[in-house]
């Protein structure tokens, strides 16, 4: 039962990467793309955690934390770039 649930969760998460990718491609301005990439990073963190549940190993948890940290730093860096008058 848990195997079916984790597989369905993986499918839903991978399917929810598709609308975000469409928004990244067609987003009219730079902040749209930044927000969509932030959502994509949080979905990737969720996929890593579900993989931890599937295999029962806890060695990828550090990787999940690192992906979240890098996504936050990238968002802050792009926000500062826009504030200093980069392309909007």
């Amino acid at each position, binding site marked *: 039962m848990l195997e079916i649930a984790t597989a369905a969760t993986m499918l839903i998460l991978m399917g*929810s990467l598709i609308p975000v990718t469409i928004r990244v491609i067609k987003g009219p*301005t730079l902040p*749209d793309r930044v927000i969509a990439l932030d959502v994509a990073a949080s979905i990737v963190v969720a996929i890593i955690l*579900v993989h931890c549940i599937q295999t029962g190993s*806890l060695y990828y948890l550090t990787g*999940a934390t690192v992906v979240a940290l890098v996504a*936050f730093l990238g968002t*802050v860096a792009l926000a500062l770039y826009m504030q200093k008058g980069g392309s909007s």
Partner: protein
Amino acid sequence: MGNGLIIFFLVFGALMSLVASLGCLRLPDLYTRMHAATKSGTVGIMSIVIAMMIQLDDASVIFRGILVILFFLLTAPVAAHMIGRSAYRSGVALWDKSSVDEYKTKK
């Protein structure tokens, strides 16, 4: 009993992530898209972390899961606030039908 709880939290978190990404595609405006992405994305991550903490019942896993939850609760509003402020200042327009612009009337 534990299995049912794990399955509930997993499916709830996945559906919340799906809601976040669909809102990021379908909503009409940068600011409404940011609202959808931040809130439901954070709730989805938190729910999946809780499912993982129940499944791998271990002290270090619970500690690191609480760390991930606290990290998301701290960083998601900060990032959304910085993006929204710099987007407004660089002139990204609001939706046509949005009725109030408090930042403009306050200045």
